[in-house]
């Protein structure tokens, strides 16, 4: 009996050997450069808000994040974001731009199902769990910080 057709463990072992390995050094380097680049851009925008729009350094974060989210959404709508993300991986996924992409891409995708059943309900299909667990984690951390 051919073990590769009958035994799941044997099959998995051989399959794992045959799977091409992701190019880890390249992926890490690209995500570092692109992710870092996005942060540099964010800092640049923050400095503009501080220097030209009279925001205090503490308050300048809010319009900066809003601008970055807008840019993430815009690039998604223009069909560019997914191409950048294919190369950048975690570099685009981790910053707030990735969050914007997950919501805008879902909103675009489900627009054809209407504003209520499509955009409204499907917009959170990817980002929903981030919001839920983000709020839960924030609540627990808040509780701990209040008790200490």
């Amino acid at each position, binding site marked *: 009996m051919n073990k590769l057709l009958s035994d799941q463990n044997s*099959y998995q072992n051989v399959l794992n050997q045959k799977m091409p390995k*992701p190019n880890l050094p390249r992926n890490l380097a690209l995500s570092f450069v692109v992710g870092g680049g996005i942060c540099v851009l964010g800092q640049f925008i923050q400095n503009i808000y501080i220097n030209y729009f009279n925001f205090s350094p503490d308050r300048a974060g809010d319009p900066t994040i809003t601008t970055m989210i807008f840019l993430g959404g815009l690039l998604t709508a223009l069909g560019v974001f997914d191409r950048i993300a294919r190369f950048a991986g975690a570099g685009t996924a981790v910053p707030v731009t990735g969050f914007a992409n*997950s919501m805008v891409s879902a909103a675009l995708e489900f627009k054809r199902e209407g504003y209520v059943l499509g955009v409204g309900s499907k917009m959170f299909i990817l980002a929903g769990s981030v919001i839920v667990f983000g709020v839960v984690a924030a609540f627990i951390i808040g509780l701990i910080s209040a008790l200490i």
Partner: protein
Amino acid sequence: MVSKLGKQTLMFTGKPTITGYGTVAGPKEGQGPVGSYFDKVFPDMILGEKSFEKAERKLMGTAVELAVEKAALTNEQIDLFIAGDLLNQIITANFSALRLGAPFMGIYGACSSFAQGLLLGGLFVDSGGAQNVVTATSSHNCSAERQYRYPTEYGAQLPPWSQHTVTGAAACVVSATGAGNTLEMATIGKVQDLGVKDPFNMGGAMAPAAADTIFKHLEETGRQPGDYDLIVTGDLGKVGREMVLEIAQRQGVDLSQNYRDCGELIYSKEQQMNAGGSGCACSALVTLGLLFNQNYKRILVVATGALHSPTTYQQQENIPTVAHAVSINFAGGGN
């Protein structure tokens, strides 16, 4: 008439003939190495329609039209329409049947639907149940992605073993009389599960089904791989094809000479589709486009399907897979 060889293999004795076929593809498939063989290549993914689902419907409708036209038939002469696709409730096939207006049976074999349709079409024609049967399959990258994975504009880095769902459709007219390549035998596959859960690794999941069906076919027909000019699997891609070769080697079956995979053939390396193509249209487009234009005598097409649903893989279930084989004698290639 149909005669049975062993448990899974059928032999068509009345030579059901593919008298016409149509191949329609999306832009990326058109730019690929097989692109020049397709009847029609659309320049974009939406095809002037309002949704990707409607675009896929247009792909299948166009393929059916072309096939019927090439077979020199009218829609009224079609006794039966057999079609399947990847979308929920095989909705593309249903709407295409509405448009064609012929008696209809929907099939679902995921990406194995191409062979499943031909097999059933051959069976109906050979048994006298129909004179002309149209079979069709389609897949659309964007409609499939949004159902099975992510929204199309979502930025994600895909693993190197992932495959790209082919955008396209193909249809065949299987007739009792007429000129064309003939269906010779068909082997109905059994569902296999070797424990693969990763929906990105469809090739790895489907390889055992393909290998099992190939072995059963050879065993029950008493043939050797060399009896075929080409043995081709549907959409295993790079990883799946290597697994089939490995399984075959351990089985003592030599597939090293004439075994290829449609998923590997449909895109070029420069297109960067990781492990290759997948989807119902993959095996259909490569077989009818590329292979039917080669100087072969006989080929074995083994279309492979991953039968999971988004619900079952989210519930951590394994991916069940199946493969159906059809052997085709080429016109002018003798027997």
